[in-house]
């Protein structure tokens, strides 16, 4: 990273941002698919039932806290690796 000039870093950041937008859309799509698959399987009505709505709510919030937790552990792991390399 520190080998790049400022202009190069800007180019890189722009590319990563574009990628992030794409990845976010992908993750969103996956989450919809996952919660639909887990919560919705009764098609006797065209409206989501209160049970299904509740399940979707819990599915999304649980997904978010789980992502957060794994992300924290991932960062800790990387920090440990970096510290080991500096020793």
């Amino acid at each position, binding site marked *: 990273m520190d080998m790049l000039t400022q202009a190069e870093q800007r*180019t*890189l950041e722009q590319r990563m941002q574009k990628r992030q937008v794409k990845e976010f859309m992908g993750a969103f799509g996956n989450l919809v698919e996952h919660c639909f698959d887990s919560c919705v399987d009764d098609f006797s009505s065209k409206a989501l039932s209160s049970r299904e709505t509740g399940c979707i709510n819990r599915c999304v919030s649980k997904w978010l806290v*789980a992502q957060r937790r*794994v992300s924290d552990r991932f960062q800790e792991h990387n920090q440990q690796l970096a510290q080991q390399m500096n020793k």
Partner: protein
Amino acid sequence: MSFLGLGRPQPTSEQKIAAVEGEMRMMADTYNRLQAMCQKKCIPTDYREGELNKGESVCLDRCTAKFLDTSIKVSEIMQAEGQAAGNQGGGGLF
């Protein structure tokens, strides 16, 4: 050492960016796989609660550690295989 960039071909700007980008992408890819995998292994899909319970939380922590260790292990084995193949002078897998 090179003086004013002479003596050794310097990587172009594009090459340097691509190298760093590739590294970041690999990291992001590992991260995304980790998230998907541990979600799948640790979170039951009945969604009776919207919060993580104790068991699920611990599972996520351990899953993360194991996934990352697995990733390191696999890369070590692949490297060793690659070196062995290189020493034999035969064509490696990669």
